[in-house]
């Protein structure tokens, strides 16, 4: 397997943390420098979604839409028809939460390369509460034909994701988190749309994560070492299209699977993996995430712990799962 470069102080208290959306802000500005067809539209959240860097650099290519998410994506669809590559941003609860039909008809079915950027996804949004903690976005976006869905794992990767999505020529969704998230990848770490990456090799279980959860899985794998469990950690930033080969290779080796996401597992990343493996490689599966319920107000760390989404809590679940579940289809 490929060696994925990670930061040196991966488990140190001093690991750098940065909101994933900050990487998007840098990536969008860079994408705008590379390609003058890139334009940006925002629904009254320009600083919050980090579009402000692009706006400062390219004021003539930035369009303020106001609090009108349906108009946000449909104006973008029109700009794409006129040859532009529009990035639209708002909080994920509003876009794609409120304007899904417009995205379906005027972007996905219409096959226009509009980029929907949903910031503030997941429970780690924190005190704003359930209304603003978007959990259903993975489900409603990955079900759309033509749509690419990516949840970067940290801000460094988000920058690469944004630049790649700008040039992919497809309707695409980027899922971003609000809170500071540990930066586990480095400049040299690879990112390609449609690729999953083995962050750490192991033989007893495959821990598959997307977005903010991939770092937590690294923490969980380290905790599992103490129990003599060798967990493999696979980072899956692209939820659609899935890197089936990498995922199936990993689970064939380990014979057990745990998925983790800061989203509804019903229809979400866990469901995507369940669909894949139940058809191609039936393997015992435990899905970690939001289990058919909404979030609530609280501090971000508090909420992640409450909903069992920290490395430590995931390690406990993985341990119990391994203790009760034999490995299937183990080869060699």
């Amino acid at each position, binding site marked *: 397997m490929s060696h994925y470069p990670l930061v040196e102080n991966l488990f140190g208290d001093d690991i750098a943390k940065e909101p994933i959306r900050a990487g998007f802000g840098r990536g969008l500005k860079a994408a705008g420098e590379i390609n003058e067809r890139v*334009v940006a539209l925002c629904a009254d959240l320009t600083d919050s979604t980090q579009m402000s860097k692009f706006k400062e650099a390219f004021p*003539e*290519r930035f*369009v303020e*839409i*106001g609090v*009108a998410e*349906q*108009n946000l994506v*449909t*104006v*973008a*669809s*029109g*700009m*794409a*028809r*006129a*040859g*532009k590559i*529009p990035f639209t941003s708002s909080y994920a609860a509003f876009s794609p939460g409120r304007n899904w*039909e*417009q995205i379906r*008809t*005027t972007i996905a*079915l*219409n*096959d226009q390369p509009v980029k929907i950027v949903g910031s503030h996804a997941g429970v780690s949004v924190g005190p704003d509460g359930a209304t603003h903690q978007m959990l259903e976005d993975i489900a409603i976006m990955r079900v759309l034909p033509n749509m690419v869905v990516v949840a970067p794992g940290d801000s460094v990767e988000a920058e690469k994701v944004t630049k790649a999505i700008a040039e992919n020529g497809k309707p695409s969704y980027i899922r971003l988190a609000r809170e500071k998230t540990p930066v586990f990848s480095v400049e040299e770490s690879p990112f390609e749309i449609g690729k999953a990456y083995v962050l750490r090799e192991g033989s007893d279980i495959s821990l598959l994560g997307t977005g903010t959860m991939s770092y937590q899985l690294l923490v969980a794998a380290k905790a599992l070492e103490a129990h003599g469990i060798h967990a493999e950690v696979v980072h899956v930033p692209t939820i659609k299209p899935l890197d089936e080969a990498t995922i199936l290779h990993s689970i064939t080796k380990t014979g057990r699977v745990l998925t983790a996401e800061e989203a509804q597992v019903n229809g979400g990343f866990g469901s995507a993996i369940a669909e894949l493996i139940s058809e191609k490689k039936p393997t015992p599966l435990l899905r970690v995430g939001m289990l058919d319920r909404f979030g609530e107000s609280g501090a971000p760390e508090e909420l992640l712990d409450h909903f069992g989404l920290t490395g430590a809590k995931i390690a406990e679940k993985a341990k119990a799962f391994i203790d009760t579940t034999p490995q299937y289809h183990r080869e060699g």
Partner: protein
Amino acid sequence: MNKQLTITDLEHMAYRLREDVIRMLEHAGSGHSAGPLGLAEIFATLYFDVMRYDPKNPEWDDRDYFFLSNGHCVPIQYAAMAEAGFFPKEELMTLRRLGSRLQGHPERTKLPGLENTSGPLGSGLSQASGVAYTLQYIDKQPHRFVYAVTGDGELDEGNIWEAAMFAGKNKLSQLIVFVDRNNIQIDGTTDHVMPLEDLHGKWESFGWHVQEIDGHNVESIRDAASMARAITNKPSVVIAHTIPGKGVDFMEYDYHWHGSPPNSEQAKEALHKLRTLDGKIKGEHE
């Protein structure tokens, strides 16, 4: 693609498009009758007098754009496009059939010459605004125009007014919208389902230049488009008063024909009426 048709030519063209619509809908066995018939003069005038395009090169990079927001009226657009030479007229009879490029509601990716995919109401004006914004502020091509047609029942949608506000704020003067004011929607008349008046005042208050015309008078349509192009500090809306089902007396003014096609007897009668100006002349085809 200005073919320099006379007013009389355009009037005849509108009736030819109506005949195509009746034949297409009868053959398809489903679809919307009233709206497309009522829009015949507007489409005839836009496609054969007003808009600049090249049917042999639909992606011509200097063309005007056309957005149909109320996608269910697409039979009249298909009829105009076929007449203009975008595709062979025989293909009109494939409407709504499996494998056809002429989907029940328009799909851009299927048929060259369509600028958008529509059907779910209320989104076409925003897409047209996106193009108009690009032409005016980014690509700076002031000689190109963006035309759009919306229904009136469609104005119930919030997305329309989001677009109206956006176009008004940005003074999108290359955007010209025709509202098909035929006073019907599926559940009844617009004043019964959801009153729209004062429609003129609503658009005006959103910062638009407003004209009201007889939507069956091709000269008025042409003049309104001309006036709209001359307005350089506002987007333009033309409230076109039309008769739903126009040209076929048993369909006129009856909202039940919003979403129904004629059967073969009704189609025969409708074609007779269209070809004879309702019995006033001898039909050349009969």
